């Protein structure tokens, strides 16, 4: 299994102008909570999954160099969309306590919450837990109930 650093947090800050035709209320709540112009990768230990509609949630513990542990909270799409994208609950349950990497758009508040897009599992598989939310040019993602 590929080993990850105890703390591997990479972020992307996109400063390109927003020229969006995406409706303001795409993913419900997305616009208030998440910054679709930023993209981060958070690596840590999977601690919890909540497999439910309208959105799945999971938590990852990230340990800083000085030993402080932060629990990051991730929000995905609906169970049905995630299932139809080839992801099962066991993909999370079988990896509980193991290191995963999550990509997505961070909370605007600065709190450790992310609208997750993909999860890299310990076996190297990258699973998709939401419709694309970051398009690389400062636009937030499309509708995502």
């Amino acid at each position, binding site marked *: 299994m590929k080993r990850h650093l105890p*703390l591997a*947090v*990479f*972020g*992307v*800050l*996109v400063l*390109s102008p*927003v020229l969006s*035709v*995406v*409706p*303001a*209320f*795409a993913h*419900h*709540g997305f*616009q*208030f*909570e*998440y910054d*679709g112009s930023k*993209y*981060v*990768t958070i690596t840590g230990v999977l601690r919890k999954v*909540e497999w*439910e*509609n*309208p959105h799945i*949630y999971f938590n990852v513990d990230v340990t*800083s160099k000085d030993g*402080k542990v*932060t*629990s990051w909270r991730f929000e995905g799409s*609906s*169970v*049905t*969309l995630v299932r*139809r*994208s080839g992801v099962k609950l066991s993909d999370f349950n079988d990896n509980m306590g193991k290191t995963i990497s999550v*990509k997505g758009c*961070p909370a*605007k*508040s*600065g*709190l*450790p919450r992310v609208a997750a897009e*993909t999860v890299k599992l310990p076996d190297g598989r*990258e699973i*998709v837990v939401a*419709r*694309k939310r*970051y398009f*690389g040019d400062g*636009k*937030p*993602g*499309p*509708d995502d*109930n």
Partner: protein
Amino acid sequence: MALHLPARLSMPIAVSALALVSMACVNAHAQDESAYARKASKPLPDGGPAPRLADGHPDLSGHWYLGLLGKEDATLNGGGFGGDPLQRPFDPKVTPEEKPAFQPWAAEKIKQLNLNAPAGAYDKLPKDQKIAILKNEILHLSQNCMPHGVPGNFDAGHGVQLVQTPGLLVQLIEQNHDFRVVPTDGRPHTKDPDPSFNGEGIGHWEGDTLVIDTIAIDERAWVTPRWTFHSPREHVIQRISRPSMNYLNYQVTVEDPGVLTKPWTTVIHHFSLSHEPLLEWYCGVGSHDDEDIAGMKDELKKLEATK
């Protein structure tokens, strides 16, 4: 906004974590290229002629998705209405859709709620407008596990299964385990029906098109995610046809003399046939999206406190 966090997460930890995120900024395009490679999509073939029932009408039965792909799959390129054009109900460049003609007060309300503004615009709005938007968003039907009602439950974005028998159309809506039963035997509306989210829908055939006429729609039902109010006089006419085995055409007209200056009709929205079953969609009180609503309520409280 995410202001609602487990008690064990302290702000200093959160801020230091974010600082690490910011310190590690790298080139955006390089990062995006390394992101998940989503698959290209391909429209379904037409699949041959539409089936017909013994009564001669086209059989609209099937599990239908918006767009041309016949599936809901987040791994596809773009992965949504605003992304992959093949998952959109129509191409606005090919068939531009007329905007609803709102009465001045309704147009102002739409503007105030910022429902047609570009994404990201919320942050730059004046406080009073933010308050109005938050109050509206807190009532969001999806977020509250509420039914979308008519007409929104047809093209809300998840699967819809139609089951047709002579004289009846059943619409099964995956989101929130919703359903609708529409008689298509030519009966008239009842006298003074009580309002409900799906209203009283009565169907009849005009050639190969099923026309569903709906009145008495609960005022809490949204017309679209960006048109969230209507009057008790709203009248919805849905036209559904099946031009081929794999495709369904859908068009809706909304008449609402309390809100519009003239009826509004969409262009044809395309749906495509899926062979997957509908899935269970439990969503109710205690859903973790309550966190989002709690966050919005906190934000609302803060804004109102600074008035």
